[in-house]
């Protein structure tokens, strides 16, 4: 899927990874987090080689990471409060009182302290993602990974998530990696952007540098043009030949 891909994520910054659908953005996140083993190459996360890391060390490393999944991935049999408390209960021996205070603090940060007793099925898409964000930061991670955090959100929820990502980065100094298609929104918060296509980085730099990048693929992606280096049509036989053929089914 990748060939000659070389990306460096600076500590304490927000790095956006963008690219057309199917370029492997989510796969890249899974490689970084060790969810998928790499066939070749070298992936270093906080000094650890992800290709050689043992399962126990991977779990130790993951305690320093948080990940926000596209759909929130809340545990559906637990309430909002218990979802956020889940990593604390699994990894710490904190008292119930302290767990309550930590969970309420994180829920307050995402504006959902009042929804603590609700179940995931009772939440909207935006609320689910904010709860998932509270859960992702409850262990105070050093690295936060967001997989398409803006998909399917209304403008209000989108703005809330956008500001939360920036605020978390500014106040806690968290290193953030955001995978997104949303050029205009991501430009508002990212410190640097990488554009992936064809298994490698085709452009990188600040959002402003990307806006002025003259290469065709960047112009197509930023401008949202239907055709260009990334074809609109999936490879297929000639259109007219297919329409005029006597075949009744494909």
């Amino acid at each position, binding site marked *: 899927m990748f060939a000659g891909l070389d990306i460096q994520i600076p500590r304490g910054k927000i790095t956006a990874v963008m690219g057309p659908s199917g370029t492997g953005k989510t796969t890249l996140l899974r490689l970084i*987090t060790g969810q998928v083993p790499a066939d070749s190459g070298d992936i270093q996360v906080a000094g650890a080689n992800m290709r050689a890391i043992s399962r126990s060390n991977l779990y130790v490393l993951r305690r320093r990471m948080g990940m926000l999944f596209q759909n929130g991935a809340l545990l*559906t049999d637990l309430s909002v409060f218990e979802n956020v408390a889940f*990593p604390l209960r699994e990894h710490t021996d904190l008292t119930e009182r302290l767990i309550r205070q930590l969970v309420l603090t994180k829920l307050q940060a995402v504006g959902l302290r009042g929804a603590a007793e609700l179940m995931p099925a009772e939440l909207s898409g935006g609320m689910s993602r904010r709860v998932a964000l509270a859960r992702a930061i409850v262990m105070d991670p050093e690295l936060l990974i967001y997989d398409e955090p803006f998909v399917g959100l209304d403008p209000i929820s989108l703005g809330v998530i956008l500001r939360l990502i920036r605020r978390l980065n500014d106040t806690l100094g968290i290193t953030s990696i955001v995978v997104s298609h949303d050029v205009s929104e991501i430009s508002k918060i990212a410190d640097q952007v990488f554009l992936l296509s064809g298994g490698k980085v085709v452009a990188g730099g600040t959002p402003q540098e990307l806006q002025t990048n003259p290469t065709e693929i960047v112009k197509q992606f930023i401008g949202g043009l239907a055709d260009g280096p990334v074809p609109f049509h999936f490879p297929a036989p000639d259109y007219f030949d297919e329409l005029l053929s006597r075949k009744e089914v494909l």
Partner: protein
Amino acid sequence: MFKELWESFTDALEGLGSVVHFLFRLLVHSPPALLRFSLISQQIFNSGAFSLVIIMLSGLFVGMVLGLQGFQLLQRFGSEEALGTAATIGLVKELGPVVTALLFAGRAGTALASELGLMRATDQISAMEMMAVDPIQRVVVPRFLGGVISMPLLAAIFSVIGIYGAQLVGVQIMGVDSGSFWSQMRSAVGLSDITEGIVKSIAFGIACSLIAVYQGYYATPTAEGVGRATTRTVVTSAVVILFLDYLITAAFL
């Protein structure tokens, strides 16, 4: 033709190896999971308590049918008093474990498989892994052990209610002598009969729970994949239950 047969055979062998490997992982993770018994008791409640009504109703009806059929058969030989013995041996050794396991696979097994499959499809399993929580230990093992513990208890309840059903029809309706029904049952049914029933229900519990959690955990994360996993759970469980039933029966002869 030969090549296809060979591929089917190797696929089946690979599948069996994968299930055995999965069982080994579950067993390795079972001792630490036992330390958090609240997670297991929650699953005993989900698998066991929610299956109680269907198990008790089925046990009652199976026992009543056994009472009727047994009475008709035994009446031909003038030995209606043996109805208690016949019904109890039939229930404790055979019908109790087998029917309970089939019902358990349909009720609790499908629920386990679809729950785990949906957890996979909605990234809940991946989210746990990202939180450095082993889903096998936190989610799969408690469900597996909950099923293994529930099954023998449900089979025992099925058999007891079934005996009561047989007594209801045989004694209360068909007029078999109550004293003969109970005393013949007590003298003829031995510990080995009960042991056979217990061994079967434990084996079926392990098989049904293992198949359900395996199918659910490795379900393709789509609506179709979860549906297929649920169907495979019932079909595979039914075949394995009947195969194991034959093996254990033969072993106890």
